[in-house]
């Protein structure tokens, strides 16, 4: 039974992809061709929690464009990218779909996306209306391909109850790494199974923040070189490894494998955790947790930093409705489209000046922290084929986290592997 489902699934996937691939890659229409003015455009998304907001925004767009319908298609995150890649090869991808940083390079470099105008009367994206890191994230070799939809920043979430019990002052903007270490140790209470802070191998939440805070870097600006040999980058990693092995203020990697850091925090076993802004809604949804937790800026290293990442709406190069698709993207990034998102409270809309309703939806959390982080934000590190090296990154770094290999050894093998993969991108 298992045999059939497995090989069968794998084989059919191969089969359909191959059939699809035979149809040839889609042509890239120039910006002049606008296509039909009415019809049905499809919009591919992956987050079920954001579906109501997306549907509402689509309805609003339909209202202003008679004869146009928008079909919002939900594909669960687990299969979104596999399905999208297959659909793109076959010329049947949605006209407009969600894009993220790690996948953007692959689609832009392979001509799967339509360029979006940034100036003139037809401008789809107004670069000045969004945080610059987000606009930059979806620019490829000088051309804009994505309109920022939302963003997330990282902040320190803490459990007030555990702080009060240990008699530690709540964290605030003045905290440095040293404060984090000292207080995490004070908050650790092994008898109760409580730890000061979670140190999982998480990129966006953890080391993509501590690396720039230490003055290090993950990938060079030209996206050709790995930063994992820089001693300051290693300092950013060492903070977490020491938190487990030297200060003993975090659960081990094994414990965090069994129960992930966010779950532990929700269960009251972690006093502090680094979390993305989208988890605010998750914590808010639990009434008991809602009263117990608070949020503060990330502790400073050599400098203050929080990594920013966000999704974008992009237009498929093979769309039959290039004009309509662009209009829809423009609408989604407009003030009106952004405010519909903000009201639903799951993601922070990317457009400047539309974020406040998101924070107001959860009044007892000091969500200004997440919004202010934009001012000292650092861009999310990507390249053409980000997935290839970010996989290696997680795999190798976890060896240093578990203590099976020294950080110096891991740094050597990771730098080598990442540089090789980046060189392959350059050659391709």
């Amino acid at each position, binding site marked *: 039974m298992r*045999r059939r489902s*497995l090989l069968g699934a794998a084989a059919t996937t191969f*089969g359909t992809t191959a059939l699809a691939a035979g149809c040839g890659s889609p042509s890239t229409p120039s910006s002049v061709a606008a296509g039909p003015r009415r019809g049905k455009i499809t919009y591919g998304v992956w987050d079920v929690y954001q579906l109501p907001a997306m549907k509402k925004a689509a309805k609003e767009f339909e209202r202003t464009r008679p004869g146009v319908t928008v079909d919002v298609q939900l594909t669960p995150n687990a299969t979104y990218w596999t399905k999208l890649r297959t659909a793109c090869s076959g010329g049947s991808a949605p006209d407009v779909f969600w894009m993220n940083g790690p996948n953007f390079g692959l689609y832009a470099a392979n001509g799967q996306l339509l360029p979006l105008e940034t100036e003139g009367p037809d401008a789809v994206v107004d670069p000045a209306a969004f945080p610059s890191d987000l606009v930059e994230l979806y620019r490829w070799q000088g051309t804009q391909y994505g309109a920022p939809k939302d963003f997330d920043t990282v902040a320190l979430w803490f459990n007030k109850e555990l702080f009060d019990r240990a008699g530690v002052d709540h964290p605030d903007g003045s905290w440095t790494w040293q404060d984090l270490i000292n207080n995490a140790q004070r908050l650790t209470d092994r008898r109760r*199974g409580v730890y000061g802070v979670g140190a999982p191998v998480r990129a966006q939440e953890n080391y993509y923040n501590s690396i720039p805070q230490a003055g290090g870097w993950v990938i060079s600006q030209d996206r050709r070189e790995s930063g994992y040999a820089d001693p300051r980058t290693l300092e950013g990693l060492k903070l977490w490894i020491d938190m487990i092995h030297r200060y003993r203020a975090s659960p081990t990697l*094994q*414990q965090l494998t069994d129960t992930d850091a966010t779950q532990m925090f929700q269960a009251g076993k972690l006093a502090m955790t680094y979390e993305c802004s989208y988890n605010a809604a998750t914590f808010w949804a639990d009434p008991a947790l809602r009263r117990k937790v608070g949020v503060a800026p990330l502790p400073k290293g050599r400098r203050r930093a929080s990594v920013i990442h966000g999704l974008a709406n992009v237009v498929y190069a093979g769309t039959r409705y290039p004009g309509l698709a662009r209009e829809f993207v423009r609408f989604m990034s407009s003030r009106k489209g952004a405010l519909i998102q903000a009201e639903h409270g799951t993601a922070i809309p990317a457009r400047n000046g539309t974020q406040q309703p998101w924070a107001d939806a959860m009044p007892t959390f000091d969500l200004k922290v997440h919004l202010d982080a934009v001012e000292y934000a650092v861009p999310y590190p990507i390249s053409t084929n980000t997935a290839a090296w970010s996989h290696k990154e997680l795999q190798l770094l976890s060896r240093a986290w578990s203590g099976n290999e020294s950080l110096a050894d891991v740094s050597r093998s990771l730098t080598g592997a990442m540089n090789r993969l980046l060189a392959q991108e350059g050659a391709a």
Partner: protein
Amino acid sequence: MSVETEARPVTGDAPPPARGGATAPDQRALRKRERRFLYRDKWWGYALIAPAGLGLAVFYLWPVLQTLYYSFTEWGPFGGTTWIGLENYRTLVHDPEVWQSLLNSLVYTALVLLGIPVSMVLAVLLNLKGMRCTGLYRTLYFLPVVTMPAAVAVVWRWLYNGDVGILNQALSALGIDGTYWVSDPGVVRFAVAAVGVWMTVGYNMILLLAGLQGIPQDYYEAASLDGAGRVRQFFSVTMPLLSPTLFFTTVLSVIQSLQVFDLIYMILGANTSVGVTNPAYSEGQTIVMLFFQKSFFDNQRAYGAAIVCVLFVLIMALTALQFRLQKRWVHYG
């Protein structure tokens, strides 16, 4: 078959078709009709298996051939292949991850095979005369077989949890310090294999039970008249007569275990935010998990195709080997 049974009474000596027996011309006419039946039945047969056969060809055989072809190419992320000959296989041979995960799959298979004696004992126990509630036990042992591997994995991940898992709670009541079962590189293979055995024991048990019930009682009576005790009866009567079923379960277990994917993938937490950061990931990762990673996450589909082709050959070789070795121990009574 149906033709034969239909024809036999006519040509044979049982109920005479016509008064006074069949004459020679009659018989010739009958033979002719018989041939026509055979001919027509043949086409009916083909017609009836055509839908399934077509599906098999389109959805199984053709993709298999395509996969083989793609394993010799380089496949761009959005289609477009270039022939690169044996390059993927050359990379594969020098890829330590491939060897490691092949080893993991083989170890898992060997450990799951240890479940066959367990199934055997259970089958024999359930076949004992005077055993009560056999229906209940059969259901209990068979339940894991009909449970989704994904659900099984989620539940076992909790049972194995190092801090709050029920397994470690039970062990600590006995004064034993449990470990982190699914993230300790030293024990992870045994932990997942235990679940694998638990999942397959019921299936093998039912097969063996059917085999046991096919053994005529006379043999046991004869054996006991000859003075053979229970144990002797088991090894001299039960084992040889059950060997074809045992052979079947072994072949099937090897094929299925080498292809294990979802169960281990989810027990390791690879589908969650934990992903590949499980410290025991490289000791747990099976060859099909590696294929999945390469093909669908690392954008190396052709390389993934090469990996499954290697698995295909390995399974074929192991199965052929088993068929060759069966002559030494399987008795077809």
